[in-house]
């Protein structure tokens, strides 16, 4: 199954019955999967919106009435959703947003890239807010993290971004779905389904009193602190004895893993740390690894974005090198292996 369709199937199994999207390569298979499965089924909604702006605001609407709703796009389209994401975050409305990144900036290329990391992890829209950001690195993980995304979104009333990339969306790999689609559409509590038997409710952020808005901000950030504590996840691979640890996410981590295996085969002690939640970033885990390793290589398919989170986590401990390929270039594992090996020798680790 291709990655995009896997997201679609996982979403449906997670109880997502509302999808609003707009075509853009390389994520069209997801939109099309949802068209196939939701557009004519009772109790389901599929709308091909007139734009990404409309789509994210339809998600907002569906989320208001308690539905598990989703939208997806790729880089330029995600830029257009920034205002909407800021509203979702501010109004504490769950939603799942998929970004199958492509090369940028501008119209760019449709090849896979990772250059929307800043936008996703630092709230590319206006105002202080965060979204949970998940960075899958296989088709199986696309499926698993999609399901997790819906759960996290509901649990913390927060938009969750799945930060994939073109290749992940397009490629096919075997995938297993761990859950059956629920028979009933889950309805979130507190949703705006009419003031029957209760006082009427308001969902809003606007205020003429900044202190009120400040309180909203603080309450959001208290939740963010909780999320940091409870939901940060990452994968480590052979870090225990590693003298050099590569930090990479998504498809880049997968490539790096291949490269590390090559290097290990040649006796180089190299490990991998792969953040799975990009926000919250696994700071503690990086710090932990830094206790035993002094050398890091951050590898990203961009000009250097996650590296800031790594540096912030390390706060001066250890040395951090960077290897980046922007614009949609997908380096081969062998190329990354060369880079790692060179660095390993340069730093006198062997």
């Amino acid at each position, binding site marked *: 199954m291709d990655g995009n369709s896997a997201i679609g199937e996982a979403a449906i199994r997670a109880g997502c*019955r*509302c999808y*609003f999207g707009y075509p853009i390569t390389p994520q069209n298979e997801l939109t099309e999967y949802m068209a196939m499965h939701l557009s004519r089924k009772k109790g389901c*909604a599929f*709308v091909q*919106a*007139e*734009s990404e*702006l*409309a*789509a994210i*605001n*339809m*998600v*907002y*609407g*569906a*989320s*208001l*009435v*308690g*539905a598990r*709703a989703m939208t997806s796009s790729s880089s330029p389209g995600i830029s257009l959703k920034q*205002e*909407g994401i800021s*509203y979702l975050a501010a*109004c504490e409305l769950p939603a799942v947003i998929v970004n199958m990144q492509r090369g940028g900036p501008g119209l760019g290329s449709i090849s896979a890239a990772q250059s929307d990391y800043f936008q996703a992890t630092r709230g590319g829209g206006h105002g202080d807010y965060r979204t949970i950001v998940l960075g899958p690195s296989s088709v199986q993980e696309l499926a698993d993290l999609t399901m997790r995304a819906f759960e996290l979104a509901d649990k913390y009333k927060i938009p969750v971004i799945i930060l994939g990339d073109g290749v992940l969306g397009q490629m096919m790999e075997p995938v297993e779905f761990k859950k059956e689609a629920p028979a009933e559409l889950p309805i979130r509590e507190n949703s*705006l*389904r*009419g*003031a*029957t*038997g209760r006082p*009427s*409710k*308001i*969902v*809003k*952020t*606007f205020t003429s009193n900044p202190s009120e808005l400040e309180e909203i901000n603080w309450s959001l950030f208290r939740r963010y602190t909780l999320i940091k504590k409870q939901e940060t996840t990452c994968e480590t691979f052979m870090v225990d004895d590693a003298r050099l640890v590569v930090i990479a996410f998504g498809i880049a981590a997968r490539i790096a893993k291949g490269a590390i295996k090559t290097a290990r085969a040649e006796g180089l002690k190299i490990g991998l740390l792969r953040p799975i939640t990009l926000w919250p970033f696994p700071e503690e885990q990086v710090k932990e690894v830094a206790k035993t390793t002094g050398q890091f290589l951050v590898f990203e398919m961009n000009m250097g974005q996650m590296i800031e989170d790594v540096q912030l986590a390390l706060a001066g401990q250890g040395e951090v090198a960077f290897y980046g390929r922007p614009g949609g270039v997908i380096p081969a594992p062998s190329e990354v292996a060369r880079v790692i090996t060179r660095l390993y020798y340069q730093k006198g680790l062997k």
Partner: protein
Amino acid sequence: MKLIYSRPKSLKKAVFHYCPGCGHSVAHRLICEVIDEMGLQEKTLGIPPPGCSVFAYNYFDVDMAESAHGRGAAVATGVKRAYPEIVVFTYQGDGDLAGIGTAETIHAANRGENITTIFINNAVYGMTGGQMAPTTLCGMKTTTTPYGRDHLLEGHPIKMSEILALLEGVAYIERVAVNSPSNIRKTKKAIAKAFQMQLDKRGFSMVEILSPCPTNWKMSSVQAWKWVDEEMAKVFPLGVFKDVTEKKDAD
């Protein structure tokens, strides 16, 4: 003596923040009267816009949710598709609906979304301080047309009811005004009809309300209410632009 006119039930007991003589207040009250009379208070969700009516949720005693500027129709689409049992209405200004929200409005209408839109046309961006709206009349001075709107540079006022009436998904469009007792009565009827369309699942319904803005028109309330008839309604003629329930001659 019997009390024959008082505040509708679904209108909260709060002082409007609107300027004296503002049409928003009247429109609010009429919507509430319709909601009460149709028994919709417990199953309605209202979507007010950024605009002078941004605080509408402080007045309507039904579920209400803020929307991003211009996106009311998209939000309502999401709402109604996800939960068709709700009665949803958007409340939008002319900057909101005919400016930044042009695409969302036209496409929701074209898809025949089963939603109701109350469109407050006051020929100006009220909230932000009186800038030109897409519906500002030619010659009218606003803070962004200090020399008067010139159709050669800024175009003519755009007529959303006429445009939307072209679309096949549209069930009902009427343009009314809240500037006289009889027009106000007609407005209420139009609003009721628009909600009825939604209850009957006929598709997109919209009531465009010509609405005085004494503050930005720089007139007294009484002058502003007159000006709606004397100037505005000439450019924006009142009437029904589409009604799928009407017997048509050419059918």
